[in-house]
């Protein structure tokens, strides 16, 4: 798949429909449901694999690709990261921008094979040639990272040395790069959101002004959550406005406040009556009172808490 098309949903060539000899599959059997879980786990591991590339397998598969389009097998040039591949392309007189429009992501696009191979496993019949070609793509995903085919050369990258994920299978590392290649390329991310490096490794650089100037709301929230001294200090430093103050009518409940910073982000600030610990809960920007903000994060009317207390 070429860049820019990574998320597109494939279209159907209705003119070339081939009717398999199986009937319509209505639902998965219990066994197939179990297989699906194992299958997903297996390909997830392919995607985050940090072992050295299997160069021989990758080269075999890529050679076959070239042969299929009537080209001579290329000379392989290996690098430690996609970034290094671009540097090598430039050194050889190529155009890195052009290369980025025609690159493949190896293990990072294994979802493609995982999906189509599972469909085949449960009974879908593909054309024989398609089935073979699908396995060539699988072989590449299982053996290397990015690869950039040129006419006489093929530039192939080793896998990253670090891929850190959270439990939702999103790239995540609060203490360092979430993805790091030996060839000098790192990606910093919190819960799947890619952030500037300093948000993870130099939080003193997160200032009120930097937050105010950040246009991406997700990154802004992450910056605030990592502000030196905590959210309370941030609300002090940015001179957040108090929009509403009240007290829940539950016995023992403490006063709470709805606050808004200069970017329009809002927090419900409350405290635990027994521990005195203060909590800052991010709430929808359209909240106008503490009660509405609380209802929004609870998902139900807070008066029910009173009734059930």
């Amino acid at each position, binding site marked *: 798949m070429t860049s820019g098309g990574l998320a597109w949903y494939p279209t159907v060539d209705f003119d070339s429909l081939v009717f398999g000899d199986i009937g319509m599959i209505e639902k998965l059997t219990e066994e197939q449901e179990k297989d699906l879980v194992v299958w997903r786990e297996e390909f997830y591991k392919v995607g985050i694999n940090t072992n050295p590339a299997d160069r021989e397998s990758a080269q075999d598969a890529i050679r076959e690709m070239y042969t299929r389009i009537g080209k001579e097998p290329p000379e392989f040039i290996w690098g430690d990261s996609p970034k290094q591949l671009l540097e090598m392309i430039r050194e050889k007189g190529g155009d890195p921008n052009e290369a980025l429009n025609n690159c493949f992501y190896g293990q*990072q696009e294994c979802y493609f094979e995982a999906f189509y191979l599972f469909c085949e496993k449960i009974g879908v019949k593909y054309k024989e040639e398609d089935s073979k070609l699908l396995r060539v793509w699988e072989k590449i995903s299982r053996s290397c990272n990015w690869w950039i085919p040129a006419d006489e050369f093929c530039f192939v990258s080793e896998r990253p040395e670090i891929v850190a994920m959270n439990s939702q299978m999103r790239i995540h590392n609060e203490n360092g790069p979430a993805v790091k290649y030996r060839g000098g390329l790192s990606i910093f991310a919190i819960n799947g959101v890619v952030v500037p490096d300093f948000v993870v490794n130099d939080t003193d650089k997160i200032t009120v002004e930097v937050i105010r100037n950040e246009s991406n709301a997700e990154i802004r929230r992450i910056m605030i959550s990592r502000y030196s001294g905590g959210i309370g200090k941030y609300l002090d430093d940015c001179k957040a406005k108090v929009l509403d103050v009240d007290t829940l009518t539950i016995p023992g409940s403490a006063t709470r406040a709805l606050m808004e910073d200069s970017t329009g982000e809002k927090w419900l600030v409350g405290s635990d009556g027994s521990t005195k610990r203060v909590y800052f809960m991010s709430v929808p920007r359209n909240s106008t009172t503490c009660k509405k903000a609380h209802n929004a994060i609870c998902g139900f009317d807070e008066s029910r808490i009173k009734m059930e207390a």
Partner: protein
Amino acid sequence: MIKEGVKSNKKLGKYLKQSLYSSLNSSFYRSFNWSLDRYLYSSLYNSLYSSLAVSILRKLRNNT
């Protein structure tokens, strides 16, 4: 001027991946009912899809 041998091989992407997509889909679309198709798509394709490649691509584009 890009040197000949280093020119990107565009045929490989167009022919080997996009046409494969199209052909594979032709086979499986009539094999599932709609809800099973969506279920499998969401369980495998979407679930394993990672925006990592896009993030790397964006970073590299900004640096080239």
